[in-house]
């Protein structure tokens, strides 16, 4: 039981060949590029969603921040689609791997910080000291703000990893519990099954919400720095 629980998170290999790269590239097939004025159902829905999300997400940014539109939209599409595909049975979710989330979070965060330092150096450095702090507290507060700045990418990555991994683990556990309870007591199994259904609905929501939160935070860091 112990070994079974975490085996769904190992990087998949088929006859010894790691296919994890294929699995990471798979969601791109589900987003065909629009070719006509009015496309098929799939592309029309995706276009509508992208317009809705981009308008809502990029409205707070200045002109400089809006050059990041492509990056932010592809980020939310990638994380959302990867998380949703991970809810299919037996599939592998790349966002459960901390390595991949760190690989997404650190460059994006570093990009926002570098943009801020390059174009608005004084304002970026001024973020280290909130307004109106008493004079004796200043050294300590600068240290605290520096630590909170450097923890941002780690928090981004770990938040996504932990949420998705925890959701998958809960589904595995409660599903296994439901199966073993059917032979012991049908009522309890039914209750557990209801919990499983609710949890699956939550997981669908979490998949989308985590994508949104990740992208929103990156855009907030960008807003601070442009």
């Amino acid at each position, binding site marked *: 039981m112990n070994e*079974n629980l975490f*085996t*769904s998170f190992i990087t*998949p*290999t*088929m006859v010894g060949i790691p*296919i994890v790269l294929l*699995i990471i590239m*798979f969601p791109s*097939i*589900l987003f*065909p590029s629009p070719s006509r004025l009015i*496309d*098929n*159902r*799939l592309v029309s829905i995706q276009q509508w969603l992208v317009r809705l999300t981009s308008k809502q997400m990029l409205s707070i940014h200045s002109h400089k921040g809006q050059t990041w539109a492509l990056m932010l939209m592809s980020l939310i599409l990638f994380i959302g689609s990867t998380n949703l*595909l991970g809810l*299919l*049975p*037996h*599939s*592998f979710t790349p966002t459960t791997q901390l390595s991949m989330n760190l690989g997404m979070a650190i460059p994006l965060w570093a990009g926002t910080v570098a943009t801020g330092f390059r174009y608005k150096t004084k304002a970026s450095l001024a973020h280290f000291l909130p307004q109106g702090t008493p004079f004796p507290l200043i050294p300590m507060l600068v240290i605290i703000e520096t630590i909170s700045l450097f923890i941002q990418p780690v928090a981004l990555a770990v938040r996504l990893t932990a949420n998705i991994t925890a959701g998958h683990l809960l589904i595995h556990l409660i599903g296994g519990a439901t199966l073993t309870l059917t032979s012991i007591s049908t009522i309890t199994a039914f209750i557990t099954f209801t919990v499983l259904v609710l949890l699956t609905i939550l997981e669908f929501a979490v998949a989308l919400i985590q994508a949104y939160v990740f992208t929103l935070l990156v855009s907030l860091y960008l807003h601070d720095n442009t």
Partner: protein
Amino acid sequence: MASVVPVKEKKLMDVKLGELPSWILMRDFTPKGTAGAFQRGYYRYHNKYVNVKRGGVAMVLAAYMLFSYCPCYKELKHQRLCKYH
């Protein structure tokens, strides 16, 4: 068993059974040719099932599910229904 039209230009359904090995061997196995074959296959599927007015990706997702069962088979082998594990 020579044919009037050269084997090279026939489609697969027109190739006679005896000419099959020579037809397979004359296919373009260069990287560019293989990539072209994958591209042609992808667009054949895409334009038949997805790029239509009421198309969808349900079959793609079902195939992805079945495909991702293969790496998991080793860990799931002992979850089969049997009297003694």
